């Protein structure tokens, strides 16, 4: 029996110690917001926070979380930065299929906790482990800047993008 705290709630699981946190969350805790994308820590769709640090839950055994706190996408809106990031994702209409976005948001929240005013280079470094096959990367950059309250090249690009279309659509 392994005891962990998930989104503030203490839970116990009778699973083999090598079971990845991802499958404990999905199949046992019934928290399906963390996604399975690769199983090898290559795509980031499964990203959760363990004691505040982003981890790839698909390769992290549940034994590693014993006695610790796991935060998943389902509870990130309780975090002030988490809530801001979610809202920025809405404002930029980042998501296409949305499957990778739980992991993207968890990585972005971790980034902003470390770098409240990230540069594009810091964003690229922090987010390079999260694959989006739909290709929403330019909007992810813009949304992270927006969540940080920045007016940067990326943020400017957002407004440019709107005007690109605005002149043309209404011309």
């Amino acid at each position, binding site marked *: 029996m392994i005891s962990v705290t998930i989104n503030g709630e203490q839970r116990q699981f009778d699973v083999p110690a090598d079971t990845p946190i991802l499958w404990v969350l999905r199949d046992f805790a019934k928290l399906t917001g963390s996604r399975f994308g690769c199983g090898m820590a290559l795509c980031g769709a499964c990203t959760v926070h363990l004691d505040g640090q982003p981890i790839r839950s698909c390769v992290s055994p549940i034994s590693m979380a014993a006695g610790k706190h796991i935060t998943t996408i389902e509870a990130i809106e309780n975090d002030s930065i988490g809530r801001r990031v979610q809202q920025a994702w809405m404002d930029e209409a980042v998501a296409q299929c949305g499957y990778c976005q739980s992991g993207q948001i968890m990585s972005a929240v971790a980034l902003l906790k470390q770098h409240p005013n990230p540069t594009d280079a810091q964003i690229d470094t922090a987010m390079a482990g999260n694959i989006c*096959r739909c290709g929403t990367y330019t909007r992810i950059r813009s949304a992270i800047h927006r969540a940080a309250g920045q007016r940067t090249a990326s943020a400017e690009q957002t407004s440019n993008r709107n005007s690109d279309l605005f002149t043309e659509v209404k011309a």
Partner: protein
Amino acid sequence: MSQNTTIQQPSVMLANVSRRRFMQGLAVSGALVMAARWDLAMADDSPNAAQKYGGDAMPHGWVDNPNVFISLAADGKITLINHRAEMGQGIRTSIVMVLADELGADWQLVSVEQAQANEEKYGNQNTDGSRSMRHWFDPMRRAGAAMRQMLEQAAANHWHVAASDCLATVHQVVHEPTGRSLSFGELAAAAAALEVPARDSLRLKTTDQWRYINQLPKAYPESNQQQPLAVDGWDIVTGKAKYAADVEFDNMLYAVIARPPSYGSAVKSWDDSETLKVDGVVKVIALPTASQPSAFEPLGGVAVLATNTWAAIKGRNALKVEWDKGPAGDNGRYDSSTFSQQMQQTAQLPGKVVRQQGDFVAAQQQANSTFKAEYYAPHMAQAPMEPPAAIVRIQQTDNGIKADVWTSVQNPQLARDGVAKRLGLQPTDVTVNCALLGGGFGRKAKPDYVFEAADLSKAMGGRPVRVQWTREDDLHHSFFHTVALEHFEATFDQQQAVSGWLHRSVSPSIYSLFAPGVKLQSDMEVDQGIRNLPFDIPAIQAESGEAPGHVRIGWFRSVYNIPHAFGIQSFVAELAHKAGRDHKEFLLQLLGPDRQIDPRSQQVVWNYGENPELYPIDTGRFRGVIEKATKEAGWGKKLPKNRGLGLAVHQSFVSYCAVVMDVEVSDAGEVIIHRADIAFDCGPQINPDRVRSQLEGACVMGVGIGLMTQITAKDGAIEQGNFHQYLVPRINQAPKQIHTWAVNASNMSLPLGGVGEPGLPPIAPALCNAIFAATGKRIRNLPVGNQLAS
């Protein structure tokens, strides 16, 4: 050796293909011609049916009955049905926007319900070919307008006044002479009881009355979670969105399958003694190998069923399977490197002529100079972030045996009919619930994973089974994008104008998946850029060379347009360079004067299923996007060393797209993409922000096609197992900026074009042309990989 169950071979199935017509075609015209006509065969079963186009030609056509798509509640809430598959293109938002706008609904009171598979009720649901809005804008407008008129009539009846004095505004009907009003909720019951007005009596909104259609996001309230921008947005960012694997039934088993490494190889023997020791493993079941060509039949293999996903994965890891490559034939020795050499040899010899205009041989004889080049584009896997998953449960009910499916598929009806057939049920006994697709890109147009779940549930006496593909499964056993060798020859006349053009395309056909012996591209495939080439060149010859398929070949976003556009647009840039001309001016000269070409005059058969009179090849629209993209990118401007602009244009899915890439290549050979300018003309844009997002996404995927993405095979097996070997773009490799420029976005005199796919084909050639401009190094083999390393 295991004592476990083996499932009997299910009968070979060609779901949703008109089997009668298919067999007829094979008998009358030979497999190839039939394969080429497959889309038409799907469309209409009657031997003498008039030619149909667009939505009319799709199985079950379109439906515009408002009662099918709209339900009004007395409390004012409105539920709108989206019947198309949502895979990131935003169709759940866009379709419903059209209904809501014509209806006059307040978006805050609208909710969206996803339809189950039921084309008899909803019309065609097969979500591919960039068709959803192209085929459904008009029917959805009519459905919305019809219900609006029913609400107005209900109000008129209530007040005993003329309906012409009653006007639906936003969620209410106003009696104009008196200013009285009734809300949609108050009118719901009475309106629903009325007859649906005749189509010719519908009053569609004028464009200036639209509130959501053709509007930009900034027209919506800022920071509003309910905005039409994204129906599923908040569910996605909170993790609540439901994909196929996010649903479970009581007592469900989790299955992971070891599939044969080569297309067609079979299980020789297996040892599950270690598997059965894994905590949670319940059963091991061998599945039959599908005979070739396998269509959408599962590949077979050995399934491990467990009480949770991890146990099933561990169980499969512990499984020892010996495979018999015999039934796979040549596929068991498939080596993609050797095959590319074979394709190159084939390309040296004449192929089957698929388009002829003028006399290319004479052009060669009279040429001042000639130029040849060949381009290679590899296999790829669609690799949607959500690997395939499906749940099937079979139950005895008071009304007989019923099957419930929960999955994410692009073609729900195909899944429903296929499950029914293999379980011996009627299609109406099978319910297919459609979850969100965590990406599709063509992979989920093939429901083999749903059939696996059905077979396993059946083997378990109907117990719910969820089949979960891992990433390795997805990459090893996709329906792969084809592989292609594009051979070109051009002749220049005395004035240095291009007088002759030969395009010989060697590439396995998707139809090799459906009929034996197919080695040539079908009409549908050569109509993707080869026959509909828009150039004003006196002598044009296009040929298809033989190439058998050795893996399952299937649709990948933009399909054959990818290699065809890469070849054509790279070759034009090379010709311009050889002629010492500016690429843009040279390209515009090849296009010639603005004109509308009847595709049939170029031997085009398919034209994306659209009426060639409504959808001609329009060189003016080609020119329009070229001018826009080059202007915005500053074409011709001076750039620092190692930096260059590259241009490409392509028409596909009846839309036009030009791209300029601004690229820097470092001394180490690293490619940095500073900016992409994409000009796009799909005619009127219904949901401009989602059009833009599709272009941005296509740009990133296209960067991957250009720089890194490929599948290779050796000894009959795919070499890439996960994202460390199968490379797709990451955020640091994406363009720093992507600018999208809409052309004709509000021009309602044009018919709608496709959106999801046409942004992709020009990206890789524009990128490689930019690399040439930056470095002088010409890329003829995709992907770039380490070709730029010094």
